[in-house]
């Protein structure tokens, strides 16, 4: 009976409708796929588009900022630490921004005078402005003494003023060569402590009345230089140009056991060392690194890491969820138990144990990555599993199975594409959550990625937190960056979800 149909000769077959006219109207419009449709819907959502632009900008920032910054992550300045944003030339303009200004309270007359003297000697005025004055009355031996205190905005970079340091003879000679070439005065004449009432502040170059540092002025109200011309002091040869008013006898250095000690302007020395003036758009952190560059370096790592983690978790979660959802029954039950146990493990424990066990063997970053991979895929697999449960019983799957499609083909060719939308969306929401938890972990110091990544946003923020009240910029800039990044990623993810699953629009979970 069956055999009768098996060997029907080819000629007996004929087309049902070969030359007939089809009366259906031909579709004029172009067919639009699922993704194109989603994209159209996404474009309508203004806030998500803005978020996408901001993300693009921040990603660009993280790539570009280390390139355009004159500094690298290894440039650590020993003095300019936790200093406010400064770009050369802004301080003199009085624009109020990028001038390295920080307000210092309770500066007395002597202090104000000292800053003015620093301005006179180095030609760089550290006082950006006097913010306020207050008068404090106090009783001194029965008399009322009024002392005036100033609140000054000081340019921190100029306020470093003159320092004393020991150089080798070679470096001392090299600085002189630099002075001759550029005309920038780095080395200033020596002042002996005994001439200025044994005050150790290297910025004081004038004659003083007392150990408090009250200046002794001449008839015109000018400071009287206390530069040493003691010819008994042995120094290194100084052939470079001398400062104004030098009668030619002032000495510029003092010998200190095989090296030479001198007074030098740190700002100009910085120019000598780095070839350019300080240029810290976002200020510096506690290690003297440029924040502008460091944020970029940290963010670059965070973003790459987050993308990598979500890609791996996506892969594992999809396969795991597909097997769970497709086979169901006992397999599902067992796999679900495993996922349950893993999801019960607190993430911080997971990270810590991986660090303790593996960081010596495979490195900090891989063991950190393993910690994410161990539990990160669970959410994704649950999503995929749900989609598989929904679609595996549908007629088209049955039809494909009847036609002899293998399990693998059914899973990944027929059912899986249905869950693509969900996956894309959750991916966009996984990235910010990875960034956020990575920031938390590095912030808490549980993982130290500085040796691998240079720095991370979390590390920068934990450094900034310790000086949050005195140098808020060290906290503000990374905070703004990370907040903006996370907010835009979440907005973007919500927009994607609405675009891919229009039925859930407006639900926020």
């Amino acid at each position, binding site marked *: 009976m069956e055999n009768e149909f098996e060997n029907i000769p080819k000629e007996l077959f004929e087309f049902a409708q070969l030359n007939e006219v089809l009366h259906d109207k031909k579709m004029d419009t172009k067919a639009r796929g699922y993704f194109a449709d989603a994209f159209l819907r996404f474009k309508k959502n203004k806030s998500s588009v803005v978020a996408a632009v901001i993300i693009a900008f921040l990603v660009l920032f993280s790539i570009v900022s280390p390139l355009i910054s004159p500094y690298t992550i290894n440039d650590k300045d020993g003095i300019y630490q936790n200093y406010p944003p400064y770009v050369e030339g802004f301080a003199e303009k009085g624009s109020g921004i990028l001038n390295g200004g920080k307000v210092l309270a309770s500066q007395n007359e002597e202090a104000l005078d000292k800053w003015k003297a620093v301005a006179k000697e180095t030609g760089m005025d550290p006082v950006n402005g006097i913010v306020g004055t207050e008068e404090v009355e106090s009783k001194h031996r029965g008399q009322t003494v009024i002392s005036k205190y100033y609140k000054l905005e000081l340019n921190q970079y100029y306020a470093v003023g003159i320092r004393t340091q020991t150089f080798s003879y070679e470096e001392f000679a090299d600085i002189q060569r630099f002075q001759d070439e550029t005309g920038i005065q780095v080395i200033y004449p020596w002042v002996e402590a005994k001439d200025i009432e044994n005050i150790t502040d290297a910025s004081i170059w004038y004659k003083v009345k007392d150990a408090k540092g009250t200046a002794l002025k001449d008839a015109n109200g000018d400071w009287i230089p206390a530069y040493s011309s003691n010819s008994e002091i042995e120094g290194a040869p100084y052939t470079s140009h001398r400062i104004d008013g030098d009668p030619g006898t002032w000495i510029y250095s003092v010998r200190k056991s095989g090296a030479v000690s001198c007074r030098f302007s740190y700002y100009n020395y910085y120019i000598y060392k780095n070839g350019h003036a300080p240029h810290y758009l976002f200020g510096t952190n506690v290690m003297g690194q440029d924040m502008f560059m460091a944020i970029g370096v940290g963010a670059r790592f965070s973003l790459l890491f987050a993308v990598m983690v979500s890609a791996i978790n996506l892969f594992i979660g999809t396969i795991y969820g597909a097997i769970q959802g497709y086979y169901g029954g006992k397999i599902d039950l067992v796999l679900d138990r495993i996922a*349950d*146990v893993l999801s*019960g*493990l*607190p993430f*911080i*424990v997971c990270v*810590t*144990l991986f660090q*303790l*066990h593996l960081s010596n063997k495979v490195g900090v970053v891989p063991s950190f990555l393993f910690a994410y991979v161990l539990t990160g895929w669970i959410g994704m697999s649950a999503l995929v599993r749900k989609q598989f449960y929904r679609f595996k019983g549908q007629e088209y799957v049955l039809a494909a199975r009847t036609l002899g499609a293998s399990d693998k083909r059914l899973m990944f060719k027929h059912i899986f594409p249905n869950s693509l939308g969900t996956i894309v969306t959750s991916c966009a929401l996984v990235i*910010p959550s990875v960034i*956020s938890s990575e*920031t*938390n972990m590095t*912030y*808490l*110091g*549980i993982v130290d990625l500085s040796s691998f990544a240079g720095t991370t946003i979390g590390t920068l*923020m934990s450094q*900034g*937190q310790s000086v*949050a*009240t005195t140098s*808020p910029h060290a*906290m503000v800039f990374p*905070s703004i960056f*990370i*907040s903006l990044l*996370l*907010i835009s*990623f*979440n*907005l973007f993810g*919500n927009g994607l979800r609405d675009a891919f699953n229009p039925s859930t629009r*407006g*639900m*926020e*979970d």
Partner: protein
Amino acid sequence: MWKYITQRILLMFMTLLIITAICFVLIRLLPLPLLPAQDPHTEVVLMEREALGYNKPIPVQFGIFLKNVFTKFDWGVSDKLYIGRDVAAIFADKLPATMIVNLYSIIFSIPIGIILGIFAALKKNTWIDHTISTLTMVVISVPSFVYAFIIQYIFYYKLGLLPALMNSGKDYFTWSMFKSMLPAVMSLSFGVIAGFTRTTRAELTEVLTSEFMLLARTKGLTKTQATVRHALKNCMVVVLPSIFGAFIGILGGSLIIERIFSVPGVGSLYLNSINGPDYPLFTMLTVFYTSIGLLAGIVVDISYSFIDPRIRMGSKK
């Protein structure tokens, strides 16, 4: 119902046991920290290690560990941070601070969160709703140490109203202590408020558009009556369990906030035990945090089934 609850609780214990076993083994495999030679406590720690079978195979050690925990609630003695002191006692010492700070925070923030959520849902698609929703989204996205910084900067540095760090000491109910807790409480509250606003709003908007609300209006109820009697009740099906979850969560506290404001609580103890490293302390706190997580989940699920018996979380479909 009871069968479901017992089942869930048994499963929870099984999960907890497995996680404990895994963590225990991994922790015991680590090299032990060196003990200070001159310290008299070293003797105690060494004796304790002998009693806990540190030189026996790990399964035996695990057996001894479980026996001690179940019979005497003995988690061993600290061997680094608080050398020679009983781990459970240190933990009990730290728990009140965490609980009080978190309790204040959720007591303040849950009502605010729910009220904001209701407000947003009732004014759906007006500027009020948009503002509340956007703020909620922003607050949820921004990491908690950013608020901590803002609060510290404004209230301590700029205004000088509150201290920067929490007082040490144990007089939890004095005014100065309360004042010193406030920055931490406020920083914790942001997240809780935003979470509850979001849940309430999402749930209430869904309820408000459902058909029984229309029926209630057609019966002649005013909008307020319908909202209070029908919508809010139904919305609480979701909100109430998360309140229970939040109450369990107060035990755990927040690692970051506790560290920033130097709250002498469990969170900072945990961080110290990791950085120490102090393995007996770390083991106990790991078990503690795992159980908090599992407990919060199970309480939420079970309270769902009490409030709305149609819902059976995690049961067979």
